[in-house]
């Protein structure tokens, strides 16, 4: 493979080094370039424990642009999962849909952890996301072990190392990344904002009703959308797919609404003030 590519190209060198770095499967992920194309990789990730995807193992494609790592790769899932459409580029602020939020210091590994961490967050109507009920997602997670990739000829249950306690640090990292990505969710086209807000609010309700820790989420809801406030403590059991983040005010969306509230309120306040002053003057 080495002869085929211009190894002087910094992006090619970088992809080769990343491939070397990731060549051994871990408990949570594995990814390697296709034999005939350094710019297309196939990956396998383990669904986050404590989420609807626990026990699921999912396969997909990472498509790197020639400008990598200046521009982000695209991600496509192949294994049915109920969270992302299949054979569709996933809309994630770390993926090709949003080159402006990508950082060159992220890597293929970052993308894999981001997918793991992002799956349990609500889709909010983003492109390529699905809103399957949790039972369906859990069923798909169970079935995923037997899914086989035509191209790699690998069966999901055989790809990754068995789970032990050693992955907790990376699992935590995945969760943090997922939270960050959700918090800095990019502005969608303006027409969709209203619909999305409604949708995600509905989701919050259902998720809260289901969760035993709803009250804890309330607290989180009140805190500002700083990512640090949403990072769970390392020892906390990972039982909730962190629904609190969904309703955390998004800077871009909230401004749209606040104007409608603030402007009428301020004008009413001014009107009352004027009336009071006028009365005082008249009475005098």
């Amino acid at each position, binding site marked *: 493979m080495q002869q085929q590519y211009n190894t002087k190209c910094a992006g090619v060198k970088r992809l080769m080094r990343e491939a070397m770095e990731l060549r051994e499967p871990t408990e949570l992920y594995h990814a390697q370039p296709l034999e005939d194309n350094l710019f297309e990789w196939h990956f396998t990730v383990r669904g986050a424990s404590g989420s609807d995807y626990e026990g699921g193992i999912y396969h997909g494609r990472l498509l790197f642009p020639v400008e990598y790592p200046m521009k982000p790769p695209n991600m496509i899932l192949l294994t049915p999962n109920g969270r992302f459409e299949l054979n569709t580029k996933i809309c994630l602020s770390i993926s090709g849909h949003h080159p402006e939020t990508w950082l060159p210091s992220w890597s293929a590994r970052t993308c894999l952890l981001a997918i793991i961490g992002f799956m349990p967050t609500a889709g909010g109507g983003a492109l390529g996301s699905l809103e399957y009920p949790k039972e369906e997602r859990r069923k798909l997670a169970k079935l995923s072990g037997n899914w086989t990739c035509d191209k790699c000829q690998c069966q999901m249950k055989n790809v990754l190392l068995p789970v032990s306690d050693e992955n907790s640090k990376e699992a935590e990292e995945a969760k943090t990344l997922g939270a960050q990505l959700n918090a800095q969710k990019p502005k969608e*086209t303006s027409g969709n904002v209203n619909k999305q807000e409604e949708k995600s609010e509905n989701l919050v309700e259902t998720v809260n009703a289901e969760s035993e820790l709803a009250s804890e989420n309330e607290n989180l809801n009140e805190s500002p959308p700083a990512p640090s406030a949403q990072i769970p403590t390392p020892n906390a059991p990972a039982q909730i797919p962190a629904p609190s983040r969904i309703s955390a005010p998004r800077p871009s969306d909230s401004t749209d609404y606040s104007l409608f509230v603030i402007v009428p309120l301020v004008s009413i306040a001014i009107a009352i003030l004027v009336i009071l002053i006028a009365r005082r003057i008249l009475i005098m």
Partner: protein
Amino acid sequence: MTDAENEIELQDQQFKQIENEQKMFPLVADRLPFDLVILDYDAETSPDYYNKAKELANTYGEIRQIRGDGNCFYRAVFVGILEVCMKNEEKAKQFLETCLGWNDRLLKLGFPDWTTNDFCEVFTDWFKKVVNKETTSEKIFDDLNDDSQSNYLIIFMRLITSGYLKEHSEDYAPFIDDGRSLADYCSTEIEAMWKDADHLGISGLVLATGYNIRIEYMDRTAAPNGGWHYDIPADCNETPEISLLYRPGHYDIIYHK
């Protein structure tokens, strides 16, 4: 296709078009007579710029234009430093030391180790060739005009800028006015590719590299102190070796006569 998809498709096309237009200019052009700048302006329709350009032409003999892709400030300073180093071996060695030192400084600040090491290594390996004279000036400028090579080196410039700001977070955090943390600001404005440098980026890069710069403003209102030019850092005693010309939204390198 849904509306949203259509819109994204359209946006993509627009981005591509802008990118292609940008790519018609070299990343780092050759040194050309400063008179070119005068030619950009018409004496009658924009007399202010025209006169300013004529005035600058008394001091500056040449200009090297840089592609306007959001990296122009970083690229201009980097090329300026390289030119100094190509002429002065002592300074080249000194700058190599600074850059080698940045690898550990960045890791200490919590930059992701794998990719940070990669960017630092690629940069210092490339720059070592300049220091040891294992490359020619022609080859250096070929590399600077090769998108993938050149941008890899620019990322290093961005990383050390971000690193310097983070090392001095107490000094810089108060300048970020929209409630973001310095770390947030650095990742979205400095470390992300294609984002123009603002005053924090300028100050960070100058102090991270140890190279003072002078910026000449075509438009007086754009200069922070209302003057025609501005030295960074403001308290530097000698005239900086590197001069940039700022025209709204863009930097090029200019050379004293």
